[in-house]
C-alpha cells in the first residue's frame, strides 16, 4: 500500500513538472496556433538564471523567485519581439522551424554561458525532505504540485471570465480576422509567450531543485510535448492533466513492470487514447463542414 502511495506521489511530482511545461505549450498554441519547440530550452535557461541569482544572493528565496520570474517575462518578450513577431504572417511551419532554430541556439548558449556540468541547486529549503504520512517527498516536489494547481485555477478563471481569453482563441483561429476586429495580435502573442515562459520557468527551477540542474534539462520539453497532445493541443488545463497522467503511468509501469518500458508505456497510452479521441482528452475538434 505504501509502495503504491510512494509510486503515485513521485509520479504526480514529476507529472506536475511535465504538466506545467505542457501547459506552456498549450498556451502558446491556443493563442497563436504555434508550437514552440524551444519551450523546454526556455525553461532550462530560466532555471540556470535562477541558479545564478541564488548563488550570488546567497539563496534568498524571494529575491530568487522575483528575479527569475522577472527574467522569464523579459526573456520571453525579447524572444517574441525579436524572433517570432517578424515571422507572424509567415507560414506556420516556417514559424515552427524558427523555434527549432531557437532551441539549437539556447542549448549552445547554456554551455557557453554556464557549463556542461550537472549542478546541485539548493534554493531555500527546496531540497528538504518532508514526510507526508509515511511518504517522503522533497519540498520542491510539493511546490511544483502547488504551482500546477495554482496555474490550473488561474488559467480556468482567465479563460472563463476574461474577454482577453476569447481574443486569444480568436487570434489562434484566424489572426488576420482578429486584427480586423481591432485585436492586436502582437499583444496577445506577447502575453502568451510571457505566461508560457513563467510556467515552464517554474517547472524548470523546481525540477532542478528536486532533481538536478544540467544542460539536458531541456529534454523535459520532449516529455511535455506528448503530455500536451494527450490533453489536447489547445486545452491548457487538459495539458496539465496529460502531464500528470504520463508521470503517474511511467512510475506505475516502472514500479510494477519494468523500467525499460517506462518511456514506451507513456507513448502506448497516448496512442490508445488518441485512437479513441483523435484530439486528445480535452482538445477541440477541428471544425469542418461543407
Amino acid at each position, binding site marked *: 500500500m505504501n509502495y503504491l502511495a510512494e509510486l503515485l506521489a513521485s509520479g504526480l511530482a514529476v507529472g506536475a513538472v511535465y504538466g506545467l511545461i505542457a501547459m506552456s505549450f498549450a498556451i502558446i498554441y491556443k493563442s497563436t496556433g504555434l508550437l514552440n519547440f524551444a519551450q523546454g530550452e526556455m525553461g532550462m535557461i530560466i532555471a540556470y538564471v535562477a541558479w545564478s541569482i541564488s548563488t550570488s544572493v546567497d539563496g534568498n528565496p524571494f529575491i530568487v523567485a522575483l528575479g527569475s520570474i522577472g527574467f522569464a517575462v523579459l526573456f520571453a518578450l525579447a524572444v517574441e519581439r525579436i524572433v517570432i513577431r517578424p515571422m507572424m504572417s509567415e507560414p506556420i511551419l516556417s514559424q515552427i522551424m524558427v523555434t527549432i532554430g531557437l532551441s539549437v541556439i539556447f542549448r549552445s548558449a547554456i554551455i557557453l554561458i554556464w557549463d556542461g556540468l550537472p549542478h546541485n541547486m539548493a534554493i531555500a529549503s527546496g531540497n528538504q525532505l518532508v514526510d507526508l504520512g509515511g511518504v517522503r517527498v522533497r519540498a520542491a516536489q510539493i511546490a511544483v504540485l502547488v504551482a500546477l494547481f495554482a496555474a490550473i485555477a488561474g488559467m480556468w478563471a482567465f479563460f472563463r471570465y476574461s*474577454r482577453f481569453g*476569447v481574443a486569444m482563441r480568436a487570434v489562434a*483561429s*484566424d489572426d*488576420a480576422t*482578429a486584427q*480586423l*476586429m481591432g*485585436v492586436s*495580435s502582437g499583444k496577445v502573442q506577447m502575453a502568451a509567450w510571457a505566461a508560457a515562459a513563467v510556467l515552464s520557468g517554474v517547472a524548470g527551477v523546481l525540477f532542478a531543485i528536486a532533481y538536478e540542474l544540467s544542460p539536458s534539462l531541456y529534454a523535459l520539453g520532449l516529455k511535455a510535448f506528448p503530455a500536451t497532445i494527450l490533453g489536447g493541443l489547445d486545452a491548457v488545463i487538459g495539458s496539465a492533466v496529460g502531464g500528470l497522467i504520463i508521470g503517474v503511468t511511467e512510475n506505475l509501469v516502472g514500479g510494477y513492470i519494468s523500467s525499460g518500458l517506462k518511456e514506451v508505456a507513456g507513448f502506448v497510452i497516448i496512442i490508445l487514447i488518441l485512437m479513441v479521441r483523435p484530439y486528445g482528452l480535452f482538445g477541440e475538434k477541428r471544425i469542418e463542414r461543407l
Partner: protein
Amino acid sequence: MAGPVAPAGRTRIAPPLLEIRNAQIIYDNAVEAVRDVSLSVPEGSVVALLGSNGAGKSTLLKAVTGTLHLEEGVLTKGSVHFAGEDIGHARTERIVGNGMVLVPEGRRLFANLTVDENLTMGAHLKSTAEMKRLKQMVMELFPRLAERRSQISGYLSGGEQQMVAVGRALMAEPRLLALDEPSLGLAPLIIDSIYQTIGRMRREMNMTIFLVEQNASRAMEIADYVYIMENGRIVLDGPAEKMRTNLDVQEYYLGFSGGDGARKSFRDVKHYKRRKRWLS
C-alpha cells in the same frame, strides 16, 4: 473624375472620409490586380463598388484595411487616406482603431468560437455594457442567430455564417463600414432586413458605408454613388440615379434587355460575345 460629394444637406467642405488615389496593387510581385484606381467615400454617404469576378474589388478592400500583405499583395503605387491619415501601409489594428471595419470576403468567422463569442470579438474595442447593447441589436436583426447563440459557429449554415459576419462588423459601430458582398448566400427576406439595417445605421448614426456587391439592383437602391470596376480599373462611375439609366449597367448589372425596362428571362440568354460600351 469628379467623384461623389457629400450628400445634400450636409454641405461641408471636408475631405472625404476614405480616399484612394491612383492605387496600383500587385500580388506575388507578378499579378497586377488593381491599376490606377482612384475613389472616394465622403462621410455619411453610401458608395457602392460593382464589377465582375476578378475585377479587383476585394483586393481594393484588403488594401483599405491593411490585410493585403497577408496574401503577398503590395500597394505599389498611390495612397489610401482614411479620416485624413495615410493608412496605405498602416497596421490593421490601427485602422480598425480609427473606426473602419470590414466584413471580409468569405466570412472568415472564428470557426471554433461560438456565435456569441464571435459577436463579442466584434466589439473587442468597446466596453462590456456597450457590447451587451449591441449584441441585443444584432440578435434582433437576425433572430436566427439568437436561436443559435451558443452553437460553434463553424457548424452554422452558410447563410447563418454570413449573418454572424455582418453582425460582428455591426458590433463595432464603426465610422466606416466596408462590406464585401454582404448579401452573399442570404435568403431574400434576410437581405431585406440587412439593407434596412444598413439604411437605418446610416440615418441614425451617420455611418459611412462602402459596399462591394454583386446584387447590383439592391446596391443601387441604397447607394449615393456607384463605381464600376473591370479588370482592375474603374471603368465607369457616377451618382446612383444616373447610373441606373446607363444602358450598359442595365444590361450587364440589372438584367434588362435592350432598354425596354423589362427583365429578360435566364432561359432566353443567348451566348454571343457582347461588348461593353465602356471597354471600347
